[in-house]
Every structure is written in structure tokens, then in C-alpha cells.
């Protein structure tokens, strides 16, 4: 994307009638949505028994991602906060059922009835506080908790997300883990800033079974270098601290001469102290022998 819509306006305002229509009629966006949906469906790893599944499409928008689900023979329920996007979906006569709702308020769905869930470019909107009553952490918690409840045992959820930074990604992932999900992040094309795609792959229940998260495309074995650079910044010592200039020694030119000495002797005599008499040697420097 050229720019992030999250920083422009809340989703129900950003995707107004004009933007919803423009978004849906863009062939490039249609292509991107189809590709991401295919990949999400692949990562969902549904059992290959040719029975249609009941899937959830969170942030379905105008039904572009749901269309991929229909083409693969599945039934789906779509949820979006933008009424304009849903109206475009109705015009396009999508096969899935549509709901106008806010995922941050929790999904009002019965427990254990959904076979899987996908979301394309939607979950990162939860990291924004668009109203004074919004708390991103609580909204993410409400979302993932209700999602965990409505998924059946062993079902998966795959969310393609565009996190703004590492903190946002960690925030989303931690909220999912706290809700009880297992899983992690799958990154396709991690080294390309343009083609990079991040999928949150979550599994509901079945803790005993080891869940294998598939590797992202074009991903090699190197660990993420972002965290290493962070540590390096903390450990770096400032160079200017090492070359502190030495304190200049004060050059005290005013010495104590004979005048000062004679004045001090007279002062001590007036006080009644025993003072040696003044001689020609008074005030002279002693020999080196002392």
C-alpha cells in the first residue's frame, strides 16, 4: 500500500461509499485480495474431505476474500464494520451471509460452531484507538476471546495482517496467546519490503498435538535481525565519554613571601605565643638536605 489507511480515519469512515466502490473496482486490489485469500485458505489446512465448511471472514469488506471461500465450495459468514463496504457486497450478490459489526466489541457467535476463520488486512485496525472509549488491548482481548469461544475444537484461524511496527505485531500476537490460542506468525517473502506478507496462524484447542507452523515462502533459516540491532543500540558506549579532557591545573602564582612571614610572626607575638626572633635568615629557603 502506498499509505496506511489506519492513520487517515476509522474504518467505518475511511471506507465510505466512494472509497468502498473504488476499492472493490480496482483490479489490482481484487487480485491481491484473491491471492491473500488463497494463501490464508491454504494455511487454514482444512481437512481434505470435500465437505463444505462453515467459515468466518472477519473484516470481509465487499466480499472479495469471501469470494475465494465460495469458489472453494465453503459457506461463510462475513463481518465488517463498514456499512458502505457491505452494501457493495450486497450489490455484488456475494454468496456468504453478511453482518455489520465491530470485531473489537467481541463476536456474538455461539460457542463451538465455526470450522475456521480468515481475515485479510483487517485485524491491525484494532491497534488504533479511534474513540475515547477504545482501548486497543481490551478490544483485542474481546476479539480473540470471543473468537476462541466460537471456533470448534481443533479449528484454525488465519489472519493476514499489516502491522505498523514490531510492537503492534507483538501486541496482536500476545492478545491471541492470552486468549488460549497456539500458533505464531508465518511470513511470506520476508526480505522484500514490497512483497512481504504476514499471516497470523492460530490453532484452537488440541494442546496435546504438536502444531507445525509452515514456513513462509522464500524464508531462510536466519533469525530476525531486528531484535539484534535493538540489543546493539543498548550496549553501545558513547565515544565522547572516553575522551574527557583532564582538568586544568590551577596555576597559583601568589606565593607566600617574606612580607607575609614577618606579618604572621608579629601577629603570633601579639597573641602571646612563643615566636623565634627575626634574623637575617628569616624567610629564606631551607637547604635541600632537609
Amino acid at each position, binding site marked *: 500500500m502506498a499509505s496506511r489507511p489506519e492513520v487517515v480515519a476509522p474504518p467505518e469512515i475511511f471506507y465510505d461509499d466512494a472509497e468502498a466502490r473504488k476499492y472493490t473496482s480496482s483490479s489490482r486490489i481484487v487480485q491481491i485480495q484473491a491471492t491473500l485469500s488463497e494463501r490464508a485458505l491454504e494455511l487454514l489446512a482444512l481437512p481434505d474431505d470435500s465437505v*463444505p465448511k*462453515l467459515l468466518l471472514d472477519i473484516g470481509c469488506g465487499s466480499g472479495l476474500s469471501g469470494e475465494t471461500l465460495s469458489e472453494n465450495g465453503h*459457506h461463510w459468514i462475513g463481518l465488517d464494520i463498514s456499512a458502505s463496504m457491505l*452494501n457493495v457486497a*450486497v450489490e455484488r450478490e456475494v454468496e456468504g451471509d*453478511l453482518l455489520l459489526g465491530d470485531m473489537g*466489541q467481541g463476536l*456474538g457467535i*455461539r460457542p463451538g460452531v465455526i470450522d475456521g476463520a480468515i481475515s485479510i488486512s483487517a485485524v491491525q485496525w484494532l491497534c488504533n484507538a479511534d474513540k475515547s*472509549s477504545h482501548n486497543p488491548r481490551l478490544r483485542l482481548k474481546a476479539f480473540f476471546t470471543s473468537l476462541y469461544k466460537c471456533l470448534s475444537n481443533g479449528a484454525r484461524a488465519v489472519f493476514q495482517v499489516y502491522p505498523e511496527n514490531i510492537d503492534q505485531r507483538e501486541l496482536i500476537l500476545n492478545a491471541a496467546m492470552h486468549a488460549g490460542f497456539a500458533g505464531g506468525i508465518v511470513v511470506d517473502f520476508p526480505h522484500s519490503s514490497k512483497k512481504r506478507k504476514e499471516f497470523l496462524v492460530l490453532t484452537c484447542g488440541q494442546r496435546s498435538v504438536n502444531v507445525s507452523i509452515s514456513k513462509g515462502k522464500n524464508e531462510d533459516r536466519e533469525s530476525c535481525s531486528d531484535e539484534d540491532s535493538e540489543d546493539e543500540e543498548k550496549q553501545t558506549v558513547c565515544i565522547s565519554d572516553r575522551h574527557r579532557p583532564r582538568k586544568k591545573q590551577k596555576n597559583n602564582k601568589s606565593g607566600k613571601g617574606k612580607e607575609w612571614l614577618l606579618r604572621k610572626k608579629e601577629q603570633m607575638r601579639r597573641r602571646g605565643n612563643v615566636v623565634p626572633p627575626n634574623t637575617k635568615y628569616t624567610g629564606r629557603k631551607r637547604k635541600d638536605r632537609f
Partner: protein
Amino acid sequence: MRLITHNMLSSNIKGVVNGFPLRIEAEKVMEKTMEMNSEFLEKMFEKVDWKAFVDASRAMGYTELPEEANSSMLDSDEFLNRFHHALLELDLEEGALVCPETGRRFPVSKGIPNMLLHEDEV
């Protein structure tokens, strides 16, 4: 909105203990045709809350479903056809869904239920 979706929905309002099933106030109901898949229907039969399903279909004007149902009835083509029709082909276009505990109405417009909650309901 189809009845398959209605059977999944519950009220999410703060303080509501059992927000299922939502009562249907139907103003306009449409019928759409959809290809039947018996395996999907068998799976959905296990998930569907049957009493809520029958009440909802009656609110939509369809009265062909039996009051009680068990899995042996799935062998009957006639039952499968009725189940399929009520589950996937009835569409609530205009009306409202009503929370059974609070009476909160969720309007349905163009087949899309508006489940957005007010700030004090979250």
C-alpha cells in the same frame, strides 16, 4: 441473513448471560435457491440448535419443520429438502433481531443485521 447465520448469532451485550436465540421480527423474507449438499447438512444438523431453528423458521413463515428431530430423519430426502430450504434458502431481508434478555433490537436492512453495540453496551 439466512437461518444458518441466525442459529449461530447470540446477543453480545454486557450483562447478558444467555443471549441465544435472538427472536426474529420479520418484515420481508426472500427465498433464494442454493445447491444442496447432504454431507454439509449432516454436519450442520449436529451443530444446529433445533428448537431455536424451528422457532426461527416459523417466524420467517416456514412451518414444514417437525418439532423434534433426530439423526435418523436425515435418511429421508423429504426431510433433507425441508432442512436445506429452511437453513440456507430463507433470507430475512428486512426486520429485526431482538435480544431475549434485554429486548434490544438489532435492525436488519438489505439482509444485513446491524450488530453494532453502543458504548455503554460493550
